[in-house]
């Protein structure tokens, strides 16, 4: 049995070493804890959101705000984190669901335990007290199109890209765009709703096809995050930078080169930093049992006058005005 005890010693030491790091990270917490859980950690979008959570913590020392998320893009992993946080006894959860349907059961159990639940990017989430959206999808689509038609001089052929025909928000955006374009009778929509599958390369090929089919096309409105990169590259290579307009959803950092070259007219996005702060702000209001009312100021840029509607379930849907349209002149303010 001498060897056995030796092995146990080794194993014990290994575990102790493993856990030594975790000790001391926790302090006695009397302040209410707001735990933000994101879809996946370690990607730029949610790193940016983390800066918002950190900033919120600095501004509100009377609460503890933290952010965590799974290391892999798997709804099951996010579910486990939420469940562990519920067991740990956090006071509020601010969740950006990987898949709203999968976590309905767990969020319901959390609310049954008296935990405040706030969500983001999930206007179809039923078990939440408040879902915070950066903007109204129709407004966003119309704003993108307004920028596009302005660039096109309100006339000419234009087309649209969506991530996939199953993507609800993308279809809302292009739908609102089409409605906006109807105001300008000289704008002619051709071959709409091309599917990009958020793949810059596939979008590039598709855009080249469209340029061949419609050599006189004047504008593109795109939806998925990588679409502007694909279409922008096609325009750039065809020497059409600045001659054909391109407005779509995109992030400033990856789009910087194409914005500089003029291939991308403007990009639209919302800032996850502000969204993170807004979620935490709503969670704190709900913790303090204060009402969230229509037209309220959450104290976060872009959420100064929110619209409050009834959500998909019992909770409310809080819509901000957090959309940002950035072009060559202004994108540098939002580098992420």
């Amino acid at each position, binding site marked *: 049995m001498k060897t056995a005890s030796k*092995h146990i010693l080794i194993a014990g030491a290994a575990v102790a070493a493993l856990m030594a790091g975790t000790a001391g990270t*926790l302090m006695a917490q009397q302040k209410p804890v707001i735990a933000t859980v994101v879809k996946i950690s370690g990607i730029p979008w949610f790193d940016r959101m983390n800066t918002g959570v950190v900033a919120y913590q600095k501004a509100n020392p009377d609460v503890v705000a933290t952010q*965590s998320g799974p290391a892999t893009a798997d709804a099951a*992993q996010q579910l486990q984190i939420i469940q*562990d946080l519920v*067991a740990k006894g956090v006071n509020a959860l601010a969740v950006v669901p990987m898949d709203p349907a999968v976590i*309905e*059961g767990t969020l319901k159990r959390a609310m049954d335990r008296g935990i405040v639940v706030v969500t983001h990017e999930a206007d179809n989430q039923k078990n939440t007290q408040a879902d915070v959206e950066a903007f109204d999808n129709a407004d966003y689509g119309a704003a993108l199109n307004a920028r596009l038609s302005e660039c096109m001089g309100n006339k000419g052929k234009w087309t649209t890209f969506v991530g996939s025909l199953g993507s609800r928000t993308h279809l809302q955006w292009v739908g609102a765009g089409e409605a906006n374009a109807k105001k300008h009778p000289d704008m002619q929509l051709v071959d709409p709703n091309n599917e990009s599958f958020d793949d810059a390369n596939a979008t590039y090929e598709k855009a080249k096809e469209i340029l061949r089919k419609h050599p006189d096309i004047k504008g593109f409105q795109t939806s998925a995050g990588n679409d502007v990169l694909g279409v922008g590259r096609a325009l750039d290579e065809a020497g059409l930078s600045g001659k054909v307009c391109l407005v779509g959803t995109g992030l400033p950092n990856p789009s910087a080169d194409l914005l500089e070259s003029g291939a991308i007219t403007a990009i639209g996005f919302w800032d996850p930093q502000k969204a993170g702060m807004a979620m935490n702000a709503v969670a704190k209001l709900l913790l303090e049992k204060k009402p969230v009312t229509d037209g309220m100021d959450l104290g976060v840029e872009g959420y100064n006058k929110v619209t409050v509607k009834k959500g998909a379930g019992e909770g409310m849907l809080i819509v901000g005005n957090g959309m940002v349209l950035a072009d060559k002149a202004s994108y540098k303010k939002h580098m992420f």
Partner: protein
Amino acid sequence: MHKTSEQLIMLVVINVALLAVGAAISGGTFLSLFNFQSMASQVPEIGLLAIGVMLAMCAGNGGIDLSGIALANLSGVLSAVIVSSFLSATDSETGFSLAFMAMTVGIGFAGGVINGLLISKLNITPILCTLGTQMAFMGLAVVVSGGKAVTVGSPDLLSRIGNDMFLGVPIGFLIFAVVAALIAAVLKFTPYGLWLMLMGTNPKAAVYAGFPRTGILVATYAISGTLSGLAGMIIAARNVNVKYDYGSSYLLIAILVVVMAGVKPEGGYGRVICVVLSAIALQLMSSLLNFGGLSNFVRDFAWGLLLLTFLAVGRYDVAGFLMPFKGQNKSSGPGPQAPKPTN
């Protein structure tokens, strides 16, 4: 049998150590009843899949079941679509629940039989065969559900399995414990268990000794598939909705659990109790890190480190057996052995 009990002792020690560390850093909440219940309700999904992988590994000849989580999702998705087409989850709650439960387990069983037949009859290498069926199961689930989450709803009986407790223990965990005990008993007391282990130790000798090879393989993968079906049912019961890509990370975690439990990857040896303890240890560790508010990347690192520790200690154990004052030689035949350090 010296080594077996040692693996068991080590797993117990690790579990206790994790609990102690958890208590220390959380100031006691880690040991609260609610957290135990919460963790216990998380274990069954991965635990059931891991037992399936263990059985496949024990069968030897590179046995493994990669199709577990895909089959679990398929059974959930397909059952939800089929059962709700003729029964309503709100109108006939018990009927819906029973039909759904029978269907998930049945689909799991059928999927497992397909794996077993492909492997035994067509002699396809298990890793390739189950990789293929994994994609086929997942693809079928995508087609059936259109790639969207399918709502199962929470009819009375089913939602109890997912949410309720029996004597303070989550029902899902009870199901897992009973199934694990059942399989442990089958392995220990039936000819099937003996055949499985002996065949895993030396497949060639097993064939010459007249073991029903096809029967053993089909039974093994069928059990593994049935466990996947059960996992699918528990997932549906807990989450209300099922989706084809749920738990995509479970595949590797299940294998990790099995290796940590000391199951021999080359076949012929594995204990259910060790798999259960190993699954619990992983659960404790991941919950612990979530309690500590550490990044989930640390968790992957910690799991990897734990696995390496186990492998290292296992190897050290082999060296221990070669020591002169313990002359006991465990090799069961002239078959290929892992290289042993000479000292």
